[in-house]
């Protein structure tokens, strides 16, 4: 089981953590809402829970919970720029469909 990130994603996470001045790493998970079933959660982490799993990729701690992992195991995070818009992109091998805007997905 693992979640990984590309170099550019790791760099941006590190930069954000440094700017924020605190935080152990980032949490990646899912929420069961949205028009197409589920949506991703991407948050800073200040403290972990007992059941959390911690991965390390490119020197960044990625934290997730077992329930989310069932849906996003094997996901790779990338940081992309398209025009003026930039942000994190998830490549999730488990998804079967996405809603039009890509904010939510089904497995």
């Amino acid at each position, binding site marked *: 089981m693992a979640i990984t990130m590309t170099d550019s994603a790791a760099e941006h996470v590190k930069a954000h953590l440094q700017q924020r001045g605190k935080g152990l790493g980032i949490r990646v998970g899912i929420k069961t809402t*949205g028009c197409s079933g589920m949506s991703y959660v*991407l*948050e800073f982490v200040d403290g972990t829970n007992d059941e959390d799993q911690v991965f390390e990729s490119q020197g960044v701690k990625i934290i997730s919970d077992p329930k989310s992992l069932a849906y996003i195991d094997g996901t790779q995070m990338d940081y992309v720029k398209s*025009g003026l*818009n930039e*942000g994190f*992109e*998830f490549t999730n091998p488990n998804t079967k469909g996405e809603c039009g805007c890509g904010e*939510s997905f089904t497995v």
Partner: protein
Amino acid sequence: MALLQISEPGQSPEPHQRKLAVGIDLGTTNSLVASMREAKAQTLPDLAGGHLLPSVVRYLNAEGDSSVEVGQVARDAIFEDPQNTISSVKRLMGRGVSDVKTLGDCLPYEFIQSETEMPYIRTVCGDKSPVEVSSEILKVLAARAQETLGGDLSGAVITVPAYFDEAQRQATKDAAKLAGLHVYRLLNEPTAAAVAYGLDKGAEGIHAIYDLGGGTFDISILRLNKGVFEVLSTGGDSALGGDDFDHAIASWVLEQAGQECVGSNVARQLMEIARGIKEQLTTNDSVDVDISTGCFSWDGVITKDIFHELVDPLIAKTVRACKRALRDAGLSASEIDDVVMVGGSTRVPRVREKIAVFFGATPLCDIDPDKVVAVGASIQADVLAGNKPDDEMVLLDVIPLSLGIETMGGLMEKIIHRNTTIPVTRAQEFTTFKDGQTALAVQVLQGERELVSDCRSLARFELRGIPPMVAGAARIRVTYQVDADGLLSVSAKELTSDVESSVQVKPSYGLSDNEVTRMLKDSFEFAEGDKDARALAEERVEADRQLEALRCALAENGNVLLSDDECKSLHELMAALAIAKQGDDAVVIRKAIDELNSTSEVFAARRMDQSIHKALSGQSIDSLGDEE
């Protein structure tokens, strides 16, 4: 695939519910757009990485193909195509043609008077109003934000100077509407700067916002009280800024080089060089200058000391404006809790130094002074869009000048007092002055003075169709409503008949920059005279009312109820009152009213008796008793 941003713990947005809200600083020289990203308010750059968008619009018409350029491209064309390249349009917002003319003859545009008093600028693409020009700037910023944030904007908070009046605010809102932006609220620029520093989080305090831009200087004194920012006073100089610093350096260089004056091209080049020197002197103690232009060349050294000598008189000018603003607010420099630095020119260390000395406090300048207003606006926009989980702050603003109505005798009756927090609704009841009066003119006024002639008229409308009644019987409720953007709507309703009339205030033209402050100051200076004027006007109205009532009564049954002598003495007193009314002494008029009153008491008593007699005649004592 939507690109994700990292959120604070527990604050991941629900999909499809995140609202994209922006804050826009629509400036005289430059404009910016900011938004909350990665849990942080930040300004959004364009593709080239520039955050500032020069507030310059150029209209092009190449063989019938009209197009618009906004920003640096347009600014570069100012000298090449001055008539179609419009800069500093903010100065024209909400102004009438006559105001625009007093702004200076230096404007190269061709103005056209329209029916609405709004000035239009003739360009190759047709006549453009300042509102249209502003909307072009807003369109570019909105497009940049949409592309950056990856979606449609749900709304924006746009900042305006604290001294902007209703007309200028309405013009700004119209420009946003034209650009397809939903305006959550207009926010005062100094308030936005204070929000950016989180000063609104404190319980209370008094803050000075020092805003020195490229070509304008504003000082605002704000008081935070229970989460509400009150503008205590504003001041400044609409023709003082960093450009004057550059100009001082350029003149010095010319003097050193022994040159008197140069062509406009060289002058422009010199200004650019001067700006570079100024920026280098922020970190260096001296700068080597080596200039060679078409007509002269010079090399030498400019030191920090020389620079200080050049700009100190300019900084002293801003300090004097600060002093005036403090005096208007009735405060001393030591009572200021925080000083916030806004505007690119506050990067000059000498400015910070002098201001720190004047206020006796280290100025806040951690946030980029060019961006601080936009940042504050975007924080407010995020809250208004409902993106904050806990509904923390809903910032309130206050109205800068009292709003009122004209009453009989040319008096200003205040309905909403200045510094009332907005949004607000206030109603007051008025009545008719004459018997059978069927219409009422409502004159909407703005200002602090007692007499209508000293206040500013915002609008005028009529309530018609009031059923004929005796004077004082009609009940007319006048409601003043100021929305969150400081825009006013006024309605009048006669309560017994439900006839109604209303107006949205869109005044024909605005006040000039310093007029608001002047109006406030006048209200203090002329307080005593205004009080007397009010008393006089009130006595005159009372005299008119008495004379009118008595005239009606005499015409009705004066011959029957009064002897010739009585009638004669009443007429004499009425004539005396009519003469006293012409004079300027409230006390004399009062005396004449009192005399007439006491003499007419007998007449009034007889009229009363007669009407009771009328009511009772033809009825037996028994039937009256039954009713009891």
